[in-house]
């Protein structure tokens, strides 16, 4: 049936089911080479056993089913490739698919766990009829997909998941009612195998024996009761535009226009209690050239003045300044990345503390725009064994305040680490003792005081063969030493004495 012959007031719903979505997503991340791929499954820990959470097409064809333990599956199919399941990523992927389907109809809703329902009433003729729309939607989704088309959402869903050809719901199995296992078993025991069998029975009897829910589902599938969908509302992006009857050429005027746009965007963000993290400005020149400006902030911002400051910084760092040419025709502002920003109540001291923190955050943003965000850094602790890996430098705009672990005063660390450690020539008194004197940067240092060794083993648990003898990597013996000038150093010797013929010493840091 074609969309043009549709009766007025009749709805048409299209259900899409992506049975292999989780596995296809995971394989896509792996960039699989073409050819006959081995069977693939995602596993999740259920209770105390690893069980298959979802399968790909190949694995389901050789008889594996979701829910069987990984050990059973491996016994049946030794070359099964598995990866841990990630339900969160699957859900995000489904939301991405939903956004892709918006071009066909504004009424799209998620049909958990792995499907979508589109209300395509009155939309099909724009895409060459319903068959054309379905083909385009499947191509756009890009995943293995089955579809069902009917006049109600519930029936479309049942057809997509259990149906064959056509739109007749009578031959569908009772599993299409989507009831729990107990109710389905009861139906099967009563000899009711298809929707058609059930539809011929009086409704009151079904309600008495199998519950009201069964009747409701049945009526929805048969189209007697409405099965409305709740379409996911699109959040309209924050965009403003200013067009000029005459091109404007002065940079100051352009900045004023941008400020006006920012004020308008701020009003709209305020209504949503949001603040922008990324601002994008497009300047359209009258000769067709486009110039773009983009800034990012570390915290959600609404205040036009602070955004203007960052924009001026960005313009200052541009290799070639804004070139108006024959003037700008239009200016567009978009805020593609917003986050919640709620007005907080000021504390007792008039908000002096918060004001200071906001000032520092703004300063970090400004320096990040000017120098690049990877040059404004904060220290973040890492739970690693090696001293040079126990902290990371992350861009300050992204750093989350994390508690620093309690520093151990009896195992002091140098204030400055050399990265990488610098090699030194050492004369040691006893083979496994601290050095007597060492040569660093061409100068000889006499060792007066020494403390050690503090042995720090390599991270054998991160190595492939780390549990085997000799595969763990070399341990380091650290010494805290002081030379005759009173300077304190942190030096280490690689390896256990007696294991290697060659003993290497390195200087790793300076103590105050």
């Amino acid at each position, binding site marked *: 049936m074609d969309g043009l012959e549709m009766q007025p007031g009749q709805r048409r719903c299209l259900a899409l089911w992506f049975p292999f979505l989780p596995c296809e997503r995971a394989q896509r991340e792996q960039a699989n080479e073409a050819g006959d791929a081995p069977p693939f499954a995602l596993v999740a820990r259920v209770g105390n056993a690893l069980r298959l959470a979802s399968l790909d097409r190949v694995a389901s064809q050789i008889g594996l089913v979701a829910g069987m333990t990984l050990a059973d599956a491996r016994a049946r199919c030794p070359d099964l490739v598995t990866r841990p399941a990630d339900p969160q990523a699957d859900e995000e992927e489904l939301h991405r698919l939903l956004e892709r389907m918006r071009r066909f109809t504004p009424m799209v809703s998620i049909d958990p766990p792995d499907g979508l329902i589109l209300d395509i009433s009155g939309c099909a003729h724009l895409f060459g009829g319903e068959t054309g729309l379905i083909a385009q939607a499947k191509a756009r989704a890009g995943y293995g997909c089955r579809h069902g088309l009917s006049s109600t959402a519930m029936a479309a869903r049942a057809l997509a998941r259990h149906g064959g050809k056509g739109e007749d719901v009578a031959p569908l199995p009772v599993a299409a009612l989507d009831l729990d296992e107990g109710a389905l078993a009861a139906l099967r025991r009563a000899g009711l195998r298809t929707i058609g069998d059930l539809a011929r029975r009086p409704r009151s009897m079904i309600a008495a024996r199998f519950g009201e829910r069964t009747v409701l589902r049945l009526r929805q599938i048969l189209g007697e009761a409405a099965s409305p969908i709740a379409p996911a509302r699109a959040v309209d992006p924050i965009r403003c535009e200013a067009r000029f009857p005459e091109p404007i050429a002065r940079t100051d005027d352009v900045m004023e226009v941008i400020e006006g746009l920012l004020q308008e965007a701020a009003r709209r963000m305020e209504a949503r209690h949001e603040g922008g993290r990324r601002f994008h400005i497009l300047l359209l020149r009258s000769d067709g050239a486009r110039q773009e400006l983009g800034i990012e902030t570390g915290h959600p911002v609404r205040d036009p003045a602070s955004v203007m400051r960052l924009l001026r910084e960005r313009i200052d760092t541009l290799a070639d300044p804004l070139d108006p040419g024959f003037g700008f025709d239009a200016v567009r502002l978009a805020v593609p990345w917003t986050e919640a920003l709620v007005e907080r109540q000021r504390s007792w001291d008039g908000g002096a503390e918060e004001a200071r923190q906001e000032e520092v955050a703004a*300063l970090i943003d400004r320096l990040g725009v000017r*120098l690049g965000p990877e040059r404004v850094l904060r220290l973040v602790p890492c739970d690693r064994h090696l001293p040079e890996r126990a902290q990371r430098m992350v861009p300050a705009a992204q750093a989350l305040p994390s508690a620093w672990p309690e520093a151990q005063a009896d195992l002091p660390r140098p204030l*400055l*680490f050399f990265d990488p450690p610098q090699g030194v020539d050492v004369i040691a008194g006893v083979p496994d003792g601290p050095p007597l004197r060492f040569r660093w940067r061409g100068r000889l240092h006499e060792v007066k005081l020494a*403390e050690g060794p503090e042995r720090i083993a390599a991270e054998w648990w991160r190595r492939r063969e780390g549990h085997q003898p000799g595969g763990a990597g070399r341990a380091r013996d650290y010494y805290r030493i002081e030379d005759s000038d*009173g300077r304190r150093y942190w030096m280490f010797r690689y390896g256990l004495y007696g294991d290697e013929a060659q003993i290497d010493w390195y200087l790793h840091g300076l103590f*105050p």
Partner: protein
Amino acid sequence: MHEVHCAGEDRATALAFALAMADRGDGEAVFLLRARERQRNASVISGDALALLGVDPRLLTIVETGGAVDMLRAGLDAARCPGVATIVIESEGRFADYDLTASRRLVLAAEASRTGIVILRCDAEPRSSGAHTRWSVASAPSVPMEADAPGPPSLDAHLLRLRGGAAGGRWRLIWDGQDGRFRDAARPEAVPGAVVSFPPLRKGAAGAGE
């Protein structure tokens, strides 16, 4: 504003002195400005050591700049920001862009916002500037602990210049882990106030602006 001169191998000591000298308010930001070093002798600040020196590593922001001009500009921006307690500018060698004009600018910005600025100058000749004090810092032999282990950090501080006062004092300072500050070795009893009681080293009404 203060200048701290040191030899290249005493960098860690001078940095510790600068951080200890700085008046850190409660939970106020500390900025450390460094030039991005060559690969051969790149050095990284250690958060654990900072925590032992009484600086909360979460409050430290490290800004790595490409050149001296960028560094001074960033320092000026930070000095004008009211939420910043201390700015340490780490430089090595001549640091030619740091002249009288630049230092006066930093001093004025710091006076307006009550921010402490410390300029570390490794392997550099002292140059006339607008700084209030100029120190020369070198590591000193520590008091050995048992079994000939190196003791707590200790340093020799030499006051080269003090604006409006007598310079030339020398102190042997030893880190006191109990109190979390450097202490004068000649006077082991507790000294109230900062490192040594210097009015210009205090902030607030007594010594407005550094």
